[in-house]
């Protein structure tokens, strides 16, 4: 189980990854799987379930916000969730 935080652009997503790193939260920019795409191709930051709340808080503190958030199961099914 993990969360995908979709940025509005690849650059925006990378910026989120950097902000999370500064906050000591491990994450990784990955290509959005089809199940986590809203308007075509995109990128997102993958964080563990354990780090999710901390990640959202850290992004808020950096004045950054994901465009969409998806909760994904190990099998790759993703559901958009409010944040």
């Amino acid at each position, binding site marked *: 189980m993990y969360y995908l935080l979709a940025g509005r652009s690849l*650059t925006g997503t*990378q*910026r989120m990854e950097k902000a999370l790193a500064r906050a000591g939260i491990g994450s990784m920019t990955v290509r959005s799987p089809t199940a986590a795409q809203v308007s075509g191709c995109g990128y997102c930051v993958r964080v563990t379930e354990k780090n999710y709340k901390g990640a959202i808080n850290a992004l808020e503190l950096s004045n950054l916000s994901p465009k969409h958030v998806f909760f994904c199961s190990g099998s790759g099914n993703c559901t958009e969730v409010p944040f």
Partner: protein
Amino acid sequence: MIYLDSAATTLLKPRGVHAAVSKAMRYLASPGRGGHRAAMAAARTLYECRETAAELFNMENPENIAVTFNATHALNIAIRDLVPENGRVITSGYEHNAVMRPLHALSADVTVIDTPPFDGPAMVAAFEEALKSAPDAAVFTHVSNVFGYVLPIEELAALCRRAGVPFIIDASQSAGALTVDFSALGADHIAMPGHKGLYGPQGTGLLLCKKTPSPLLFGGTGTDSARPVMPEYMPDAAEAGTHNMPGIAGLNAGMKFVLHRGTDLIGEQERLITAYIAEKLSDVGGVTCYSGKDGTGSGVISFNIDGIQPESTAQMLDREGIAVRAGLHCAPAAHKTAKTFPAGTVRMSACAFTTLRDAETAVQAIKRICAQDKNI
């Protein structure tokens, strides 16, 4: 060869630039076009390039930096964003065709502030007066690519901000050699090449943006690809199509070199070179050197020899192994302002790798050309 044409492109690059380009050609794929390792490695290099630029030009958000193919590309985006068809624009009298031609294509009503070179107060006063007409935008270069004249951009920027007039700065000859502080200047856009004072390869440029510009090119961006329209956010709105990754990797290495050595030090070295040339040529009969007082010059200097066309002088210097540029330097407006139109000038321009010995060799060659001419 003694290379004194860095205002066209810095042929001499830091070693790290060569290495970065070579590595990129072997290992970096297309950023934003996949999730595999080579694509993501390219994405990381591209982001790092934006971060390096943000540090060098004091920008908080690296997303507001568009990577372009050159300064002309960046200026076209900026001008198309701010200037409507038939819009009214103020420019300095030292603009390159990269500014004047896009404005002409828009049938813009251009007020050219054609005050003499190296006279900052005159330009500031004329700009202040012209801004009273509430133009759609102002565009001005930081440094004249012909005369090396450093325009008083801090004052011009303050005037524009006060008047509420959007403005664009062309930092083609200053980026990497003078401080260009995006946050302090408050410009709407600052455009620059990557292959001059930033020591990147040709085919690179940057556009620093306060807000998202309207797109100039339309195409793939790797995101929001199901939509028929270009993304309305930076940097994607300004970056349609495949990136020049070898160029971007090299540009990143070039900017790191500039950060490491220091813009102030590089600029000071370049000014030392041109000041030396100006001083040595000042007592050579028949040579007119266009230079200003301390603080108004840069690493670019123009001169002419009485009775010899600039192109001929450049050819003679080339035969001596000295590379300079002659003619209008794509900036006829600057020559009209300085009364060197239509023949133009001979231009010498330095970079971080130019030495005083290079300058002295060029001076001696110019003296020989003058002596030969008198013997004919």
